[in-house]
């Protein structure tokens, strides 16, 4: 079915928690496993919390070793980085690209995924899928030079339109891959029936199939959003100034002789909030996209 289980939902065969036998018999193995869970949480969160802590400290404090952990809080790094760089513009660019790319990729990608899921000829389908997949596997560093020249010829270097185009290309393959899987799970009888009722293939797609894969659209959308927001290499090579994104600005804090860690991590804190908030808010879909995109 389309709405299949996600890892957060309890397993069908699992017994309800209330009926769990012998509530808490502390064996050594269980205690160790519990300690491992705590370590796992700490290790997963530490860099993010550390980033936050340094961003909220003065330079004197974060350069004085372990004392940074108990230093007084200050917003001076945020004020400085906001006043002395174009961080606001870059965050705006990142938002613009992520939102636009997500919308465009969802439209084009779901159309292609639908079309491919209806292909009868396995040879054609597999070759198209392989072609599509190879764009996901291709290292960006290989395509950077020709894409730069292509954008130069189209007068699109360092423009927002150019970046949306590049990011659409960057995410499309992955989106098709996922949407193809979601459309394959729609029961064919439903579509056939709609077709017999006189709907055109386009209407079947729009009115019947698409509403059935909304969870899949959400899963694909959140991944595309995060991938676009986090993309660094193309932004580094294809933008200079106007069209720069948040990740592409991070290297500018690394001077030849000193690094302004406080400002860098303050900018980073602001920069990781949007994907973090979206991703965690709809984590059910994020998990589904990440695990299903690979298991099928």
């Amino acid at each position, binding site marked *: 079915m389309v709405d299949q*289980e996600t*890892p*957060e939902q309890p397993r069908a065969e699992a017994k309800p928690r209330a009926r769990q036998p012998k509530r*808490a018999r502390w064996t050594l193995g269980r205690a160790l496993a*519990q300690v491992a*869970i*705590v370590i*796992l*949480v700490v*290790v*997963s969160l530490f*860099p993010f919390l*550390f980033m936050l802590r*340094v961003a909220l400290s003065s330079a004197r404090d974060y350069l*004085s*070793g*372990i004392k940074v952990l108990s230093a007084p809080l200050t917003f001076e790094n945020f004020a400085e980085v906001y006043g002395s760089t174009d961080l606001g513009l870059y965050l705006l660019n990142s938002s613009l690209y992520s939102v636009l790319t997500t919308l465009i990729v969802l439209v*084009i990608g779901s159309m*292609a995924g639908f*079309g491919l899921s*209806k292909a*009868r000829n396995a040879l054609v389908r597999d070759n198209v899928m*392989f*072609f599509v*997949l190879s*764009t996901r*596997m*291709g*290292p960006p*560093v*290989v395509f*950077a*030079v*020709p*894409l730069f020249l*292509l954008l130069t010829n189209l007068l699109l270097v360092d423009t927002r339109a150019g970046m949306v185009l*590049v990011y659409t*290309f960057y995410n499309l393959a992955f989106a098709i891959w996922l949407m193809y899987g979601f459309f394959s799970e729609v029961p064919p009888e439903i579509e*056939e029936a709609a077709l017999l009722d006189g709907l055109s293939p*386009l209407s*079947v797609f729009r009115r019947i199939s698409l509403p059935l894969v909304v969870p899949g659209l959400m899963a694909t959308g959140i991944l595309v959003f995060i991938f676009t*927001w986090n993309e*660094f290499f193309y932004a580094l*090579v294809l933008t200079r100034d106007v069209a720069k994104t948040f*990740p592409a600005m*991070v*290297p500018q804090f*690394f001077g030849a002789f000193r690094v302004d860690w406080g400002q860098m*991590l303050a900018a*980073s804190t602001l920069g*990781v909030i949007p994907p*973090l908030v979206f*991703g*965690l808010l709809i984590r059910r879909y994020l*998990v589904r996209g*990440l695990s*299903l995109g*690979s*298991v*099928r």
Partner: protein
Amino acid sequence: MRLSKRHYLIFLGPTLLILLVMLAFPTGYVLIVSLRDFQLTNPTAGNPFVGLENYRTLLSDPAFFAALWKSVLFTVASVALTFVLGMAIALLLNRRDLWGTGLTRTVILVPLILTPLVIGATYRFMLERDNGIINEILAFVGLERIPFLASSAWAMISVILVDAWQWTPFAVLVLLAGLESLPVEPFEAARMDGASRWGEFWYITMPLLAPVIAVVLLIRTMDAFREFDKIFIMTGGGPGTATQTLPIFLYRAGFQDFNMGFSAATGVVMLIIVTLVSSLYVRRIHSAGE
């Protein structure tokens, strides 16, 4: 449901157009440039056709093989570490007698969502010899400071560990999804026969999970092989060339030495490697789906 040619064109047209412009052109262009002597620093030379000269230079360049070796080392170590840790954590989170597994499943998403470049930059500060929090903690408890990013051997270990830190949760998610979809009957039968936990894992869990494991390994291999962001910001390939993997090697040739022909030839060789591995991947998926 059968679609007519016209409808295929409608559904797939936009995709084909974008892929043609954005994929066919760059690939063709890389191939052409790789056959020319193309130096951005010498625009008057006119980029003469030199045949396979760039490939000959590349294949006789010890720096290329060094980079290839670093890439293989980085990829194998990172994938192995991600897989072993990912499997252990997935088994841990699959237990029902522990407190906090639900919360942990959410928490481990954080490394996957954080911008890789920011992860690299943050770790660069954390791993500094002086003032880096990890060395400060080591010093605090009376241990020796470690030159995480300053010594060649440690720099490689550091970038591998950070890559594994970021991607282990991915392996966990996929393996957990796999574990949760396993049938219960074989496990019940094994328990009746008095199998040990360890035997259960080796003889039931692992074989049943094999298709999922293969996919995790292949996706991770592909991603690790093209990893750029974190290495770029943590070490830039250094110290010296200690962490100069193929993508960094390619970036240096193209964007620091501006030797486009040579960097394009490197790109083609990389594409061949990646295509070989991804065709393996597609065949795997295909056979798993049947």
